[in-house]
């Protein structure tokens, strides 16, 4: 870098006409009275020597304006001034907006100010004291010791000792509880009592599968007196295919999965489902997370599992793009930017994209780091064509040889041989024997078309969105202020330097560096990777993560509520071979997971706080809410509303309509063509519904589905009237309420028994007597209300029950997990 600067200085000296400007008093006065204040006011905030920041930030565009030398030396685009020649001075060009860099960013200076600066340059850019311009002491722009490197998340994962709990503390289920109880005790709090079994089975079934437990599953668990009853439930659910269907969706949120491009030109990614199914499969097979990372970043470059690897890289391809962007250079860099954003947030919990235009304001990520990564993705092909409307790259999948395929191949070989023989005979036949030649030609044609048909059997045209390394990988030059028209220094491909630590990464000149990047991220030594994933898993069990900003572990993210626990779990996760299922099980077996969600009513003495069997300070429930309103200490299980998919799937399940087919596509339109309207009239699980960017399914929109253009590690949970309108009037809810009513009416039994069945199916419990009475009354009232509009008694009965089923499915208890 030093050498680079020197060469610029040399160049500047060579190019600058050496004009000796006398420092006339008038010029000195001009500088002191008008120029220095202007520079101070408008420029130094970004182009000062940033001693105040500990000198860690490089100035904007590499340019400092603190003395004449620094102006002559210039920044990333070269010298800022050519004394005596304002027209050739970048500074003046930028101020007059004659350059792509337009300064100051907040708006053009007044004509008078510009005139002043122009005349100053014309007069030789006199700088009397040659000293520092600002009041602050002069400094270098070289990075000094970096305070951000002490930020917790950038430190190696620590080996943490288990906390000492007071003597007499009864045994806890596992180490998680030790960390949690330790903190609670210090606040005079304790875990809440264990939740009832009916609550627990409902909680865990939704949590692991996104579906309600069947009445039989509830009763089996409630009646199971064996000591490992809970563990059996955990194992059963982790083994069910519904687990993958549920947890894959959490992952798809993060990687902004969609079946269409969205943004400007909404064309279909009709093969995206292969990636979705790959994620489901990976979760169900408990693919080690480090392998999962490598496949998605560089699966095409891995030695084994070629198809799987190709499909996995779809993650990089499925982002939203401006497909009609006329400026192709910008388009390429926007695609690279989107990839950096999704990769850095997903795996590292970092907002690296901020550094596209300037050094990160809060984290020690420099534009240099950004463009080091940009080189990797710029050397990776994502698009098949950039011409409007641009199309993403798809790569063919190969088939493995089955006996069937082998038979086809043999047949093809035989036919090819025959064709060859026919051709020989053809050429041996004299031209005048027209009929013979024609016949031979016909025979060859028949065989050729048969070959083509058979080849299709072997190689159906199957493609998947995937990336490919460029033949000629290249480094990228820094784009000053993110603008592809103002290029600065070239940066070798690599990873953020502040994280690289001991393992700084060298990218071979022969490939993009994607594989090296993947290895670097999926490493046990990377301080962020395991922590970020453990936190995501924790969050989907408890509603909140240990770090409550799952996609941002930087300085602006939340501090972890339990840093030691996070590290302890991250270490364990790595030692368990990055197994997600082992991590789930460990969390689910903890007392922390099995606590009640209730804050009992005000005024009651909390007998349940005697849970630990040790003397507790007298606490009221108000105290619990006071001490920990956000439940950061985890002294109760947080109540959660079902997500959009779980709402839809459980409505279908309860109504007896849910179809459990897995895999495949439900999108009917042509690939890479404009999206056609999607009908959502299937009864399959929600994860199989196409995700249409720019026009997400109503039900999903109403219930806080992700905005599928962007990385979303944590969904919002809003309460808005459109949700209520949906439950009241949407045809889907009507139809399923009717299906549920018909299912109940088919059940042989009394009204009371039918009500009980409905409660069991929908709420995993039996109704209280008062609830049965209330329901009976409602059914009678509704029957009277409908007497005129629905005179036929059978139709009316269905209508009455349908109306009640609709209420049941709209109730808070149906939509909430305790």
């Amino acid at each position: 870098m030093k050498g680079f600067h020197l060469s610029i200085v040399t160049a500047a000296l060579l190019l600058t006409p050496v004009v000796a400007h006398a420092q006339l008093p008038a010029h000195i006065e001009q500088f002191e009275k008008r120029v220095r204040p202007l520079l101070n006011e408008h420029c130094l905030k970004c182009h000062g020597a940033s001693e105040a920041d500990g000198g860690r930030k490089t100035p904007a565009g590499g340019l400092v304006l603190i003395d004449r030398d620094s102006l002559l030396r210039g920044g990333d685009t070269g010298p800022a001034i050519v004394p005596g020649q304002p027209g050739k001075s970048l500074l003046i060009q930028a101020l007059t907006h004659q350059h792509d860099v337009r300064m100051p960013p907040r708006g053009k200076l007044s004509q008078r100010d510009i005139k002043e600066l122009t005349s100053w340059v014309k007069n030789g850019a006199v700088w009397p004291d040659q000293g520092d311009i600002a009041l602050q002491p002069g400094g270098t722009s070289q990075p000094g010791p970096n305070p951000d490197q002490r930020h917790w998340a950038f430190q190696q994962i620590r080996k943490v000792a288990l906390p000492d709990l007071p003597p007499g503390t009864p045994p806890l289920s596992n180490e998680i509880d030790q960390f949690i109880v330790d903190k609670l005790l210090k606040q005079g709090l304790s875990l809440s009592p264990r939740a009832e079994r009916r609550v627990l089975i409902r909680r865990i079934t939704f949590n692991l599968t996104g579906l309600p437990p069947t009445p039989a599953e509830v009763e089996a668990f409630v009646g199971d007196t064996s000591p490992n009853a809970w563990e059996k439930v955990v194992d059963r659910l982790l083994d069910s295919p519904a687990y993958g269907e549920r947890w894959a969706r959490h992952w798809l949120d993060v990687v902004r999965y969609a079946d269409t491009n969205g943004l400007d030109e909404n064309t279909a990614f009709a093969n995206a489902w292969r990636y979705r199914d790959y994620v489901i499969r990976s979760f169900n097979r408990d693919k080690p997370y480090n392998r999962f990372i490598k496949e998605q970043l560089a699966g095409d470059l891995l030695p084994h599992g070629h198809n799987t690897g190709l499909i996995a890289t779809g993650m990089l391809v499925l982002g939203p793009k401006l497909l009609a962007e006329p400026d192709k250079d910008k388009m390429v860099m926007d695609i690279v930017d989107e990839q950096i954003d999704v990769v850095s947030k997903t795996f590292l919990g970092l907002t690296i994209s901020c550094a596209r235009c300037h050094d990160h304001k809060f984290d020690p990520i420099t534009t240099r780091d950004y463009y080091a990564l940009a080189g990797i993705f710029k050397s990776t092909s994502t698009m098949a064509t950039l011409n409007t409307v641009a199309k993403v790259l798809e790569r063919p999948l190969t088939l493995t040889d089955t006996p069937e395929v082998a038979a086809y191949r043999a047949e093809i070989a035989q036919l090819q041989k025959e064709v060859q023989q026919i051709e020989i005979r053809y050429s041996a036949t004299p031209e005048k024997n027209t009929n013979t030649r024609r016949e031979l030609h016909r025979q060859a044609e028949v065989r050729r078309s048969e070959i083509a048909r058979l080849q299709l059997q072997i190689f159906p045209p199957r493609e998947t969105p995937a990336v490919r390394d460029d033949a000629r990988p290249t480094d990228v030059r820094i784009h000053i202020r993110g603008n592809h028209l103002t290029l600065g220094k070239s940066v070798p491909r690599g990873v953020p330097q502040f994280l690289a630590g001991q393992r700084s990464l060298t990218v071979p000149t022969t490939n993009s560096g994607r594989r090296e990047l993947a290895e670097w991220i999926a490493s046990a030594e990377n301080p962020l990777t395991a922590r970020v994933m453990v936190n995501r898993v924790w969050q989907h069990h408890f509603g909140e993560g240990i770090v409550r900003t799952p996609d941002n572990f930087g300085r602006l993210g939340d501090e972890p509520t339990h840093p030691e626990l996070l590290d302890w779990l991250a270490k364990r996760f790595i030692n368990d071979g990055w197994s997600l299922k082992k991590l789930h099980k460990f969390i689910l077996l903890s007392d922390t997971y099995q606590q009640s969600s209730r804050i009992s009513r005000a005024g009651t003495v909390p007998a349940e706080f005697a849970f630990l069997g040790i003397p507790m300070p007298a606490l009221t429930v108000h105290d619990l809410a006071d001490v920990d309103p956000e439940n950061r200490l985890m002294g109760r299980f947080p109540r959660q509303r079902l997500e959009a998919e779980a709402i839809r799937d459980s409505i279908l399940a309860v109504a007896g309509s849910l179809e459990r087919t897995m895999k495949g596509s439900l999108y009917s339109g042509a690939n890479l063509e404009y999206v056609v309207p999607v009908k959502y009239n299937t009864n399959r699980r929600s994860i199989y519904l196409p995700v249409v960017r720019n026009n997400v399914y109503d039900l999903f929109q109403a219930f806080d589905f992700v905005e599928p253009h962007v990385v979303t590690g944590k969904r919002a949970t809003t309460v808005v009237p459109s949700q209520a309108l949906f439950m009241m009037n949407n045809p889907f809810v009507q139809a399923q309420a009717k299906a549920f009513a018909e299912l109940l009416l088919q059940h042989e039994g009394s009204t009371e028994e039918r009500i009980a069945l409905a409660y069991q199916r929908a709420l995993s419990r039996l109704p209280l007597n008062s609830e049965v009475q209330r329901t009976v009354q409602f059914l009678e009232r509704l029957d009277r209300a409908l007497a005129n509009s629905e005179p036929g008694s059978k139709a009316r009965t269905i209508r009455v029950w349908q109306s009640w089923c609709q209420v049941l499915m709209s109730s808070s208890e149906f939509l909430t997990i305790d």
Partner: protein
Amino acid sequence: MPSFCNNRIWAPTRRDLLRVSANGFGLLALADLISPARSAQAETAHNPLLPRSPHYAAKAKRVIFLFMHGGPSQVDTFDPKPRLKKHHGQPYPGEKPRVQFARTGNLLQSPWAFRPGGRSGIQVSDLFPQVRRLADELCVIRSIHADNAAHGGALLQLHTGSDTFVRPSIGSWLTYGLGSENQNLPGFVTVCPPLGHGGVQNWSSAFLPAAYTGTPVGHAGVPARKATIRDTQAAAPADVQRLQLDLLKEMNQTHLAERGADAQLEGRINAFELAFRMQSEAPQVLDLSRECQKTRDRYGIGDQLPTDHFGRQCLTARRLAEAGVRFIQCSHSYKWDQHGNLKNDHAKNAQEVDQPIAALLTDLRQRGLLEDTLVWWGGEFGRTPTAQGGDGRDHNPHAFTMWLAGGGVKGGFVHGASDDFGYYAIENRVHMHDLHATILHLMGLDHTKLTYRHAGRDFRLTDVHGNVVHDIIA
């Protein structure tokens, strides 16, 4: 202004809980506990649509945006270029942009004559004779420029400020900043919006809470006369639904009582009641048969009339404005893209909107609504002064015209200028970011302070750009 790094929508604080136990319905009552110094983000966490005070006194309380999708030609409507006539058929003497959507030929004169309108004498072409008569209401900005020459990118930048990233729509920002004046209606309504070129993205709240997403009334694919708000058609007779809701409320209250204070559970009980009211109010507001025949005639509403579609949209906009909706958009969808057939199709398009727009402006003025309603007219870009084929113009984001009316802007006023041919904005240039900043300013919001913390930083409608155009403010 302090920033609150808090995207947790419903995490109850101690105060919430106390308030809940004190009066049993903490949700709405909470607002008066919140001091005005707190950021919009912190306030809105509790009741997203409650009206909030602006940063400073507002000139306008609501916006009606009349969106001419496709890109109307400035040199044929509101930006007269006599030299275009003089140099018709000659090459454009300046440099064409580095990035062009397509190649264009030589200069093409406007097929329409320009004449002065009103006392101000602002020049408007014969495409808009009725709007021209109201020239004294218009603040015509002839120096708008933006960054993207393709429809999709341009629509996104127009609506969200960014042609690159997913960002909240301006209507969402305004509703986030100011709340809604009518709790029975959404704060941001978009009538017959286009589904292409960004589609929902153009009225989406992106990372702002879902309550600020625009509520569509129909979409561009259906005629305005059939447009409705989704799920507001009652699925059962009112007495049946009332019985259902009564039972639901009882069940939900029992459920809540067993669990102690929970703002979400309370919120949901409230939401059903609100939905029930919205379901009765929204169809009334959208029911144009409640207007007298004379009014409907003025807007050009009638089954066979070319003005029916946009006339209905404009009248709907007035009714929504009266009902307290914060941001209303009407879309004359994807009609103005005349790469060819300029003469016929621009004439047809203008005919469809001229009378309805004039009727809307007049109607608002007569009702005294124009004073605090900002009407905003324009497309995603303009068109080239050079020809595409013999009778067409290409996209041009480098100079185009938009106009504002009412809501605190100078009437009968022209701001900025494009070059002699209308290719580039040259004088008092107004970038789309500047226009956004100005609209927020007129609504009483400082565009640099209306922020939302997301993914580790504060976002704004104008990103790091935007200067308020003070010259146009009355």
